[in-house]
């Protein structure tokens, strides 16, 4: 097949390593690989005709991917069961936040200033929730859920790492942008973030403290510097104690470092802090100079590293730069020891200097860097290479805080059509993942609902594919459709259920569901079917149905109205209320609710009533009945109209011959009356003569009375 048949993600983002330049169509059943040996995945855009391909997360040669977050995650990858409570919990937060946002938008819509409506709307303004505050609360909750899930003992290592990375990105964003609405100093929180996100392993410290003359180990001073840069007394103190025990002569120096670390003033926006900071900084600065330290360190080999240690505490930029093993340490060290009142808004400037130290180009690193640099246009594409959960929720919160204008970035998300916003694309893709899961489709629906451009269409495409597992689930689906005004989708469900019920012999339920699907022709056909069974075989199923269906359903279709009236006639007849029964029967004729194929059956009922002295059918009514009788008898469709009764004769004849015994399954009456034999039609015509005579006699009686 032709290469270059489709454009790839790499076309959109040339900067990605291991980019895929072209896709190929492989034979059915084989797995494709690009030159970089990625497994290629493709997704059919649910609402379009295009196929969008992208590199999968796992290399098909069985090797681990170059980087965990390097390539986009496999959209079809199964969601681990352990993750479900997390996804449910965060979905609750997301839905709640978007509901508040919707309320807020409603309250901001222009409204009239007169009358009660205006008053209500103003009240709405006063009560409108503060969406920014809600978004911050939600962000805190997301972070809590991420951290608590990533620390669970019962999840796999890869899951732990994936969620650890997401927690890292979210928390950083929280510290620098989401919670920091007044641009406060963030040094202490960043230190905490650094220590939690890239922790010093206790083993690294214990390995050194258990060796003799640890300071001569190559790892000792870099680790001590790392602990100092992070202001981590937990790790620095044991190393300093070990240093003092190996070199008792410099114990006072190590104690000084410990004291300086312990006494480091935490930033407060007041004059006293600045004074304390200046004093503390001066002290550290004194020791960081060679002349200050040299007289107290006899061992020349220790002087230089100790000078570096004091240099870090004194905020010496070049020392901090040299000592930091990763750029995040550099940034945090600079903030802690050089610019303690550093604010988020100052970060881009500092990041310029840190740029040269950026590490491996993973999606997480790109996201972290973008957050530090406040470059949301770089953050958002980076997020799409991670879990879709992170992309959908983080962009949503940033969007609600008006930190990003997501409308400018489109087309970065597999499956997106390029017409929706970036946020919508992320939410849409995430919703698609959820809807493919048997436990999560319900929350997937909620995410789709929040995709204004393509969500409802996606729901329409998805709802028919949700496997129906129980009646309760059907009711839940219908409740969702009705609440969200998804009328056509509700109809689709009703139609499917109706067909299922009809096939299982649950005619009453089938009628209800077809009525609710507004399938009036099908309702008419089913009603006629069961009425035909009554006429031909005497089956009374229709009476059960007519007596139990709710009035709303019964009123929704002409055939049902006829069935209801006819059922009422039978009830009156059973109660020997012949006058009432006769009156109702005449009404059925005059109101034209009965199909003509049942007129003859009704006229049989009339003739039964004519025998009763209590039933008084007046002159006009008798005329009308006679007219009806002649109308079907003289019609060119006479055989159709007489057909049902003719079939009854046929069944009777077969019963007499023993061929018409009930065999367990109902025999559907012939829909085409013409199929009834000529002999049976003639029998019916003879009976018609009896009805006619009865009507004439009644007319004469009515004229006399």
């Amino acid at each position, binding site marked *: 097949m032709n290469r270059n048949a489709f454009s790839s993600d790499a076309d959109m983002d040339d900067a990605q390593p291991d980019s895929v330049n072209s896709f190929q169509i492989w034979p059915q059943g084989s797995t494709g690989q690009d030159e970089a040996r990625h497994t290629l995945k493709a997704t059919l855009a649910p609402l379009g005709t295009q196929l969008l391909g992208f590199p999968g997360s796992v290399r098909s040669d069985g090797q681990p991917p170059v980087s965990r977050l390097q390539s986009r995650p496999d959209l079809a990858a199964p969601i681990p069961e352990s993750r*479900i409570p997390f996804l449910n*919990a965060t979905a*609750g937060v997301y839905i709640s936040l978007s509901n508040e946002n919707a309320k807020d938008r409603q309250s901001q819509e222009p409204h009239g200033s007169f009358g009660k409506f205006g008053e209500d709307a103003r009240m709405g303004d006063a009560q409108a929730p503060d969406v920014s505050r809600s978004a911050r609360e939600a962000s805190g909750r997301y972070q809590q859920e991420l951290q608590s899930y990533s620390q669970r003992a019962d999840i796999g290592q890869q899951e732990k790492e994936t969620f650890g990375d997401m927690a890292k990105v979210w928390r950083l964003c929280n510290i620098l942008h989401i919670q920091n609405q007044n641009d406060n100093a963030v040094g202490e929180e960043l230190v905490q973030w650094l220590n939690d996100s890239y922790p010093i392993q206790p083993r690294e410290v214990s390995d050194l403290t258990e060796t003799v003359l640890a300071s001569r180990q190559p790892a000792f001073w870099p680790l001590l510097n790392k602990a100092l840069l992070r202001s981590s007394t937990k790790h620095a103190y044991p190393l300093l104690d070990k240093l003092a025990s190996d070199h008792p002569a410099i114990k006072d120096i190590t104690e000084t470092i410990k004291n300086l670390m312990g006494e480091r003033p935490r930033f407060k926006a007041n004059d006293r802090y600045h004074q304390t900071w200046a004093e503390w900084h001066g002290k550290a600065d004194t020791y960081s100079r060679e002349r200050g330290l040299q007289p107290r360190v006899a061992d020349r080999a220790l002087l230089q590293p100790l000078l570096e240690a004091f240099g870090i505490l004194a905020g010496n930029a070049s020392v901090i730069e040299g000592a930091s093993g990763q750029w995040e340490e550099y940034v945090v060290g600079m903030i802690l020891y050089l610019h303690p009142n550093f604010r988020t808004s100052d970060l881009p400037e500092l990041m310029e200097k840190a740029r040269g130290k950026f590490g491996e180009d993973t999606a997480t690193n790109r996201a972290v860097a973008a957050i530090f640099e406040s470059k949301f246009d770089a953050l958002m594409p980076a997020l799409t290479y991670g879990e879709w959960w992170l992309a959908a929720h983080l962009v949503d919160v940033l969007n609600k805080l008006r930190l990003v204008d997501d409308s400018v970035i489109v087309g970065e998300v597999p499956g997106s059509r390029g017409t929706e916003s970036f946020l919508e694309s992320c939410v849409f893709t995430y919703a698609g993942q959820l809807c493919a899961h048997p436990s999560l489709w319900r929350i997937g629906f909620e995410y789709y609902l929040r995709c204004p451009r393509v969500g409802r269409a996606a729901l329409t495409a998805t709802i028919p594919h949700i496997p129906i*597992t*129980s009646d309760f689930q059907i009711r839940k689906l219908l*409740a969702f459709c009705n*609440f969200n005004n998804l009328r056509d989708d509700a109809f689709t469900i009703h139609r499917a259920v109706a067909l299922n019920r009809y096939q299982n012999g649950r005619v009453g339920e089938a009628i209800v569901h077809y009525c609710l699907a507004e399938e009036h022709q099908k309702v008419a056909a089913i009603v006629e079917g069961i009425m035909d069974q009554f006429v031909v075989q005497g089956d009374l199923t229709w009476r059960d149905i007519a007596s139990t*269906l*709710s*009035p709303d359903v019964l009123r929704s279709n002409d055939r049902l109205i006829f069935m209801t009236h006819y059922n009422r006639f039978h009830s009156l007849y059973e109660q020997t209320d012949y006058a009432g029964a006769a009156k109702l029967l005449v009404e059925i004729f005059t109101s034209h609710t009965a199909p003509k194929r049942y007129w003859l059956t009704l006229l049989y009922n009339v003739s039964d009533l004519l025998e009763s002295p209590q039933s008084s059918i007046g002159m006009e009514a008798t005329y009308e009945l006679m007219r009806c009788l002649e109308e079907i008898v003289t019609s060119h469709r006479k055989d159709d109209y007489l057909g049902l009764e003719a079939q009854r004769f046929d069944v009777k004849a077969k019963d007499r011959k023993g061929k018409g015994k009930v065999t367990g399954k109902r025999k559907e009456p012939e829909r085409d009356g013409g199929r009834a034999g000529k002999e049976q039609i003639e029998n019916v015509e003879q009976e018609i003569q009896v009805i006619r005579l009865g009507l004439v006699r009644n007319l004469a009686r009515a004229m006399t009375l």
Partner: protein
Amino acid sequence: MLQGQHLFERREHDQIGKVSKVRWGPTPVHQSSLILATGTYNGLKSSISISQVLLDPQSANPLDISHAAAIPVKGDVTDLRWVPGAGPLTLISATSSGIIDIHSVAAIADRGKRETIHVEPLNQFTTQGGEGVGISALAVQPHAASNPWIASVGVDASISFQTAEGKEVQKRMENVEAIQITGLEWRTSNEIAIATSAGHIRQIDARSRSKGLPLSSHEQKHRVPLNCITVHPTQPDKLATGAENGELQIWDVRNLSDPELTILPAHDGNVWDVRFHPTSANDIATCSEDGTVCVMQWREPTSSVVDTYKPIRRFRDKNHPLGINSVDIHSEKDVLVAAGDLGCTLMTRLSRWGRSDGGVVIGEGAA
């Protein structure tokens, strides 16, 4: 509509999937611990889970939930019942695949006096003549000296009666309704009551062959599809049903030809479950697709009083905006539990909240 809103004290995301039923075990394990059964509706991934709920020994407020056992089932869990009585704890579940499972649940104390829950399968059978015909609801015969009957309703509107120990169906009634039966409860030790999607209820004597007569409101506007039914714990003539339009309906069926119906507007969406308070039986708890649990106080209607109910409390959880499918109140500890589509269990102790004369309490609950 109720104005006051309370928050649940506890929210635990402990279920794998959407919860269809939640039921308290009949007796507390001990003074500070209860047993809770939940069932999910996730198709092939559905399960029943048994949990132990620890209560604060001082206040009896729910403190923590520890997951004790998960039992995978075939099909959605459509109903869960504990067998009443003083015997060993027995849980009966029904599924959409037509299978009834019976489990014994026991709390066993170890040497450290910590109690662990043990679950053992006792019996499994189908009531509808084989797998495939799902069960919509089941109920366990009350006041039975031993071996109570289990009544179950199939999606084909048949009703079966059999004992927990036996495999054979003792009695079966076919095509009881032309439409769907959505709820089932034993009204007395011999009579069951069913609710239907056509808006009527029906009482059926388990001893007779008659299907009984449908009972419905004379007012057509109150003939709305019903989703659930429950029976007053001390007055079997009083039934409560939850409707598709959010109404809670109280039926007085002493006059079968003209049952009295009290309508309480409880919710804005489908009422999925309704329970009378086991000890303070004029309080009725309902849960709904609107994401709230409502506890209403109902009193006997009198000729002069139109308003026959007092709204008491509405509970919601800000972070559980989806439908709540099941609710239950523990008879001794007064703890209300609810669960729904987000798979989490929501709990609060009812007596923690006061009542005001006006019937509406507006206050802030603890998160």
